């Protein structure tokens, strides 16, 4: 299996805050990797660094062997890496179709061709019945679907999903999980930031855990849930008096 995304020594400071410190991990092609950690661990910042929205202080990001640090977001996208945002950013005044066509124009400037590509992406995420709905009138889950369809329309090879399940009810989470699995089955490499553990366990083959900007653990889902460092990061050491000795050991 080829390496789709290789991240090495990624660091970013905001004033005195070390948002991301020396984070490295590798994502294999067609693998789904989850990036987890408590609030403020640096997950979203990592996404910003990888996709060109922030420039890292140091480190490198290789997408299919090509350095993307220093590129602007639209160049990163053109290289085949698309992302969604934690807070959905639909083009509110546009219809669903127009939103997704805007993504499709990256690969084909012709309206008819973009429309065709956009419809495929819209069908894929299950928004087919709403293509003429104005984006601002969509429900939360449909806005997430739209974000994914718009990203898909740019024909990425790597898809970065930032908390696509936040704010969804359990039934919707199941739908979203099914969608992520479907995306993976279509051959995409996926990096997903998520808080919903049930969803992560269902989709990720590999998990990277961040805390205070640093990578504290990495491995298969089963190893991660039993890792004392991870438990400590999430729950704090005082909750688990028995685990405390292990954590300090």
């Amino acid at each position, binding site marked *: 299996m080829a390496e789709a995304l290789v991240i090495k020594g990624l660091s970013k400071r905001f004033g005195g805050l070390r948002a991301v410190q020396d984070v490295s991990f590798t994502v294999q092609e067609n693998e789904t990797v989850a990036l987890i950690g408590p609030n403020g661990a640096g997950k979203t910042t990592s996404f910003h660094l990888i*996709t060109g929205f922030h420039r890292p202080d140091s480190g490198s990001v290789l997408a299919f062997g090509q350095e993307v640090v220093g590129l602007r977001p639209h160049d990163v996208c053109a290289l085949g890496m698309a992302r969604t*945002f934690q807070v959905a950013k639909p*083009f509110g005044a546009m*219809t669903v179709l127009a939103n997704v066509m*805007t993504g499709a124009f990256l690969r084909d400037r012709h309206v008819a061709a973009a429309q065709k590509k956009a419809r495929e992406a819209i069908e894929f995420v299950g928004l087919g019945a709403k293509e003429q709905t104005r984006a601002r009138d969509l429900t939360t889950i449909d806005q997430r679907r739209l974000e994914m369809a718009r*990203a898909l329309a740019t024909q990425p090879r790597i898809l970065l999903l930032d908390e696509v399940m936040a704010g969804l009810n359990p039934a919707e989470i199941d739908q979203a999980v099914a969608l992520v699995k479907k995306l993976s089955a279509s051959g995409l490499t996926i990096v997903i930031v998520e808080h919903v553990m049930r969803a992560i366990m269902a989709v990720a083959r590999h998990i990277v855990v961040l805390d205070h900007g640093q990578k504290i653990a990495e491995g298969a889902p089963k190893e991660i849930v039993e890792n004392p460092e991870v438990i400590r990061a999430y729950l704090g050491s005082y909750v688990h008096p028995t685990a405390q000795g292990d954590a300090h050991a």
Partner: protein
Amino acid sequence: MQTSGNMKWLWLAIGAVVMLALPQFVTSSFAIDIFIRILLFSFIGVAWNLMGGYAKQLSLGHAAYFGVGAYTSTIMQVNYGISPWIGMIAGGVVAMLASLPIGWLCFRLRGPYFTIATIATAQVLMLIFLKFRDFAWGAEGTTIPNLGSAPLMMQFEEKSSYYYVVLGLLVVGLWITHQIEKSWIGYYLVAIGEDEDAAEAIGVNAPKVKRDIYMISAFLTALAGTFYTQYIYFIDPATAFSFNVSIEAALVSIVGGIGTLWGPVIGTVLLETTSALLQSWLGSSVGGIQLTVYSLILMAVILWRPTGLIGFATDVYHRTLRRKPARA
């Protein structure tokens, strides 16, 4: 979305015939003057709307390009005897070039800061033309030599000729807008206006798209500047770089509906006719009352119909016909 194609062409044809025939039936010089003002400000609004409306980059400095266009053609005509028809295009090109550094500076800022920066650029240009007298007549300006009937020098004895010139400009502006609106550029502009980060994330080179549309917008605005100077046979910095031009360009679009093809035209028709009527009815009785009423209308539109009259009309249309709101 395409409404039934044949109907659209029918309306366009009717509109064209009415617009072309109008000066033949309306002979009052006062009325023609109002028509010319309406067409001119519609055109400036259309030029502004490309960037201010579709991409929501609220510029209040388009007078910069109006003035650059006006001065370029006037300097070429008065100093070198070059026809304003050529000067007009030259003015457009100069405005395009001027928009590059201005855009480079202003587009670093977003929202209100961008707007303030655009105001400043127009003011700075006005000051330059005020202070450097050797360059272009300074504060007193200059009159355009009257050659009588000289169509090749953009001078006409009939007011209706000016009407046709500015009508032609408006048609060109609308045609360009229509071409942009239905192409990928239109989608990119609206996407940038809605959320620049989201647009970047899906591959939109926002700085480049903004720069390009700003150039087109500046070019068209400069054409209006040349036309206006030729029409009033006079130029000075206060007129050419008038803040009113910047305001009017934005206002007519906002009132009519930003980011729509016909918004600036409808906005201008409403504002200019209201202003002209109020002036003739109330102007002599109580000083300033026509401006007060005018301001109230503006406030009413902005408060209750922020999508402009086009947005209002579209909503009513879809509600009464029970069709889905469609905007692509």
